[in-house]
């Protein structure tokens, strides 16, 4: 390695030294030379090179920054090495609560409980404790209840860059629209709705 490392080398070293996403602006600032566009194209080149070079790590754009991550194909071996040193996965209750917060944020606990039909204190506690959900402030509504939102750790936890990267629940919109249409129609007794009028029961791949 030459005395003065190349941008590519510095970038790799920087990303390598970090266990969390590093923002593009931080990289630009630290490199103190190439502009944003240049750094971005270096990053893209690095991502490609890592993909093509048959390497054990990959460069991902996540939670608004760049981070090196091990390749998923190596997961079984890493699991074996780290054994139990990992955080447990979220419970079903936790995931339900998280989904409501993610899609309806900012949201109050009363709203969450209402949708789940069950008290969500325990799951909310876990989500707050793990930093995936934060108290965002207060709603303007009556009694000014606290509102909850997802954190940037949530993005990183889900491996996405942005809330807009959450899968769009087209089907949900469809369900509601369908409901509204049904409500418009005169209620013809209890006539069953044709099956295809209502999206199927399970959430299989929406287009």
């Amino acid at each position: 390695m030459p005395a003065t490392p190349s941008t590519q080398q510095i970038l790799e070293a920087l990303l390598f030294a970090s266990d969390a996403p590093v923002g593009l602006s931080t990289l630009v600032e630290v490199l103190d030379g190439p502009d944003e566009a240049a750094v971005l194209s270096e990053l893209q080149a690095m991502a490609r090179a890592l993909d093509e070079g048959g390497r054990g790590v990959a460069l991902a754009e996540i939670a608004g920054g760049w981070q090196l991550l091990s390749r998923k194909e190596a997961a079984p071996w890493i699991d074996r090495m780290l054994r139990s040193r990992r955080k447990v996965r979220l419970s079903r209750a936790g995931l339900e609560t998280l989904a409501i917060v993610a899609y309806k944020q900012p949201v109050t606990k009363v709203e969450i409980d209402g949708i789940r039909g069950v008290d969500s204190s325990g799951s909310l506690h876990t989500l707050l404790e793990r930093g995936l959900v934060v108290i965002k402030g207060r709603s303007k509504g009556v009694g000014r209840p606290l509102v909850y939102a997802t954190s940037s750790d949530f993005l990183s936890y889900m491996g996405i860059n942005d809330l807009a990267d959450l899968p769009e629940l087209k089907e949900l919109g469809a369900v509601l629209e369908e409901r509204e249409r049904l409500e418009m129609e005169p209620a013809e007794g209890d006539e069953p709705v044709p099956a295809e009028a209502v999206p199927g029961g399970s959430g299989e791949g929406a287009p």
Partner: protein
Amino acid sequence: MTDEKVSDEHLPMRVQLPAFEGPLDLLLHLIQQDEIEITDIPIAKITRQYLETLDLMHELDLEVAGEFLVMAATLMRIKSRMLLPPPITAEEEEEDPREGLVRQLLEYRRFKEASRELERMEGERRLHFDRGAPAQLEDPDASELLPVSLFRLLDALKNVLSRQAPVPVHTITAEPIRLEEAIGLLETHLKERPRALFEEMLDLFVSRLEKITAFLGLLEMLKSGTIQVAQEDLFGPIWVEWRGDAPPENPENGELSEGGEEDQAPQAIHAEEE
């Protein structure tokens, strides 16, 4: 009303009962199991199955949360309303008694499905490992504090309060004041009244020890340039003036003299203190 297959009335008496997140989860399970259209629930049948499941949960010694019972009551109320004859006037459109429940089920199902999607993403992300040994700086004179969530703050308060220490015996020993506390108090005071008499400032401090600390604080502030000290004549009163965080070399205020007096003034006070 819809065809309720009376033949198929046995609940699957599996020993293993899936864990239900709540009454809505259980209802969805029953509906899905019978392949019933969610918008047209055969309420009598579902109610029966629901109650049977609750019984089973009791038998299996599972805790049945209150919400399950509330839902049972709701189901029975809907059932009885369904039995009422339809309104006589055709104009008067009565809402289907199941309407509210259906809406709730659909809404819940939306998020249940979303949660499966999140679960998939979580699983996918967990296949990728973060760097295990990130680089770290050694010197701990850190510049910034990591943000703390409101939850952590409140959690800390809760922990502290639940520890509830024994009421301390109130011995009134003078609390020794720290230098930065003295500076803090002086600053607060000077921000309100940017020009004050030296003696007046020291009066803020009670004990002799505190006064000495305050004096050292003033020296510190002089050094950092947040205050200026001036004496109008040789044995006259000494004034302290607040200069904020401006750099010390900025002699704009003609009325306060700079230079040697800064050294002199503390001496005067010092003498007085002795």
